[in-house]
């Protein structure tokens, strides 16, 4: 019985994780970014093939877990090459990610990159920080290191 319970618990956690990485269109993502919120939105664009993205990911996880004033969203841009999101789902499970994960379901980067940020050429890792209360936003397309996110968040206060 104990084992069964453990199994059921494990399975339900697993099921919840699998739920987290939903496919999203760029217009839905734009709405999520712009929706008035008490929290500062930290949106990181990454892909499973991007080594610096994976290296900096623990910073985003830690930020989301430790700061109630911040909402972290990790947006995978994997689907431009491989239309199958399974690789991303597996990655989210393996890394036990606690942040909200979306998989961008768009085909033409020449269209969707501008919708998110005009100054962005599409290089990843990239991070957008939005404070809907002050109307300020900041964007960086480089790998972040310990302490960088906190400084960027201070810029949008």
């Amino acid at each position, binding site marked *: 019985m104990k084992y069964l319970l453990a199994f059921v618990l494990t399975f339900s956690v697993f099921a919840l994780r699998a739920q987290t990485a939903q496919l999203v269109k760029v217009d839905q993502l734009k709405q999520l970014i712009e929706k008035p919120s008490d929290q500062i939105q930290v949106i990181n664009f990454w892909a499973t093939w991007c080594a610096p993205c994976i290296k900096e990911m623990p910073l985003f996880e830690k930020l989301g877990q430790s700061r109630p004033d911040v909402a972290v969203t990790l947006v995978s841009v994997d689907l431009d090459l491989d239309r199958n999101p399974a690789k991303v789902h597996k990655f989210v499970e393996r890394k036990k990610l606690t942040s909200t994960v979306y998989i961008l379901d768009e085909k033409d980067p020449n269209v969707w990159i501008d919708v998110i940020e005009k*100054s962005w050429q599409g290089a990843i890792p990239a991070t957008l920080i939005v404070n809907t209360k002050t109307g300020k936003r900041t964007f960086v397309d480089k790998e972040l290191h310990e302490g960088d996110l906190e400084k960027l968040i201070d810029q949008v206060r």
Partner: protein
Amino acid sequence: MKKVLSLLAVAALLVAAAPAKDGYEVGDKVADFKLKNVDGKMVSLADFKTAKGFIVMFDCNTCPVSKAYNERILALNKKYASQGFPVIAINPNDPSVSAGDSFEKMVDYAKKKGYDFPYLVDETQNVAKAFGATNTPHVFVLTKDLTVAYIGSIDNSRDAGNVTKKYVEEAVDALLAGKEVPTPKTKAVGCTIKWKPA
């Protein structure tokens, strides 16, 4: 006051650390450069006396997107160098951040892949900054007088099988025919240039 000063200091640091966002736009004239090639010789655009223009390609050894495009970059030079538009590849990545992009590794990579075009190291990253390059791969098609005619990606799909628009080929074909470049600016997912730590 102290707080304001420290905030200002932080802001100044962030500004200094951020790579130049400006750089060249379509229609701008670029400054020639002199960079070391994988054969050890210094290369400038002015060395190409008979060129009708250039396919300047910021690229590297390590980026998965660059790797996906490697064959297509070789094919571009095969097709266009003889027509007067050679590929000039430039690696701006700082080897202290990306060890696989050291000059020695560039020499090995160019040999292994059979590069028949210059593969230059932008050690100071000043050329990448002047161009406003942010990605690898990131293409700038230039005319003979070094005016930017196209900025962006090689085509519209990292998956070679799904390409429907060959942006760079369209741009060079248009220039060769004396016509307007149909799509002068595009964007694509790529790897960030590995800038030197501030």
